[in-house]
């Protein structure tokens, strides 16, 4: 297990492993949207929570296909399935690795980008909190999606298609938290729901994902 985690992290760090690229993409979205939408600070401030969450979500999305596809192509996945560790565990560990490489950094840099989008000052704390609560769900759900398309060559696009709808609840509640926080309203309800979704996903989805992997292997 730890061996697997260490290997995945190491692979992410090595050349072409794509660590930090998620961040860059996040940054890019935060820059492109104003370029498209226009510079008025007021408008930007209003849409900032939504855009930031969508950006984080997409950044997560783009790195999903690495979770299983690489291991599938070089046969590691078959061997892991045959190894004396539960496949559910493998899935969970890989999702964790993905979060450490993507979700966590995203959460940490988010305030910087919020600056670019003129997010109202009191929104920052909620932004970080909501991301910290929400991104684990993104990674786990993403792992599930990746497990579904693991057989498909370069299934990146298909993957995003499958996963995005599953991201909707997380997105809505996450963005809601930030929006209310920024407006100074109370955020208890959406925050609780966000946490609930994450818990549920982390608790249950690994089993579904493992099942999907098994199907794809035979």
């Amino acid at each position, binding site marked *: 297990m730890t061996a*697997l985690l260490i290997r995945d992290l190491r692979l992410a760090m090595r*050349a072409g492993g794509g660590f930090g690229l998620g961040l860059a993409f996040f940054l890019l979205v935060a820059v492109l949207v104003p370029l498209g939408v226009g510079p008025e600070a007021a408008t930007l401030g209003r849409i900032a929570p939504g855009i930031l969450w969508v950006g984080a979500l997409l950044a997560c999305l783009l790195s999903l296909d690495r979770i299983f596809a690489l291991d599938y192509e070089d046969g590691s996945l078959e061997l*892991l399935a*045959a190894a*004396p560790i539960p496949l559910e565990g493998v899935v969970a560990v890989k999702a964790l690795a993905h979060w450490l490489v993507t979700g966590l950094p995203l959460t940490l840099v988010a305030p910087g980008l919020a600056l670019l989008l003129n997010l109202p000052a009191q929104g920052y704390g909620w932004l970080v909190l909501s991301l910290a609560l929400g991104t684990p769900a993104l990674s786990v759900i993403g792992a599930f999606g990746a497990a579904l398309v693991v057989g498909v060559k370069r299934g990146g696009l298909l993957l995003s298609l499958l996963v995005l709808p599953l991201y909707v609840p997380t997105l809505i509640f996450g963005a809601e938290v930030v929006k209310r926080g920024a407006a100074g309203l109370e955020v208890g309800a959406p925050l609780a729901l966000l946490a609930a979704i994450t818990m549920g996903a982390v608790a249950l989805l690994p089993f579904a994902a493992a099942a999907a992997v098994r199907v794809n292997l*035979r």
Partner: protein
Amino acid sequence: MPAPLFAPAYFGYGWGMEMVVQDLAVARGGVTVLEGVGFALASGRALIVRGPNGVGKTTLLRTLAGLQPVAAGRISLPPDSLTYAAHADGLKAVLTVRENLTFWAEIHGTGAVEGALRAMNMAQLADRRAADLSAGQKRRLGLARLLVTGRTVWLMDEPTVSLDVASVGMFVAMVRAHLAQGGVAVIATHIDLGLEEAEVLDLTPFKARPSLARDGFDEAFA
């Protein structure tokens, strides 16, 4: 070479265990390719699977490895006892030879890396990235992986591809040592390994008559 050196601490080994296959039918892409395949392997024995291209060797091995559903018949062998070595070796190009082996050793809870390296004479390549290996060297690494799994039943699909004569010899020696410890090996190959003691199974007679398709789905609709 001295067996204990690279024997994975005798992990999971035990005399007398057996692999029994009865009246097995295997299908690929909904088409039954082989049927009525049967054999029994006592521990310490090896089976060489032969047959022309496309007869169904790979399909058979994948089925034995549990990577494909069984179309018909029975396979019985102790749980968690087998490992499968196909063309895809489960190696990470950016990791070094040792890192690759260590990973699999840890996953299987054995610590036989050094021994495995020596067995396949990869010692001096140990710190080379797998990407920087030649085809044959990669293959040798893939075979060394078998040793660190500590499994008793080895299923190998054309293991000697792109190995030179010397390496083939090394491979045969490795298999012999494995058998000597009560292991079992099933090897699909086109060339003559010079592994006389092994039984030989030619699949040609088991070729399925295309007429009948075996797996549930087709049956239901035939």
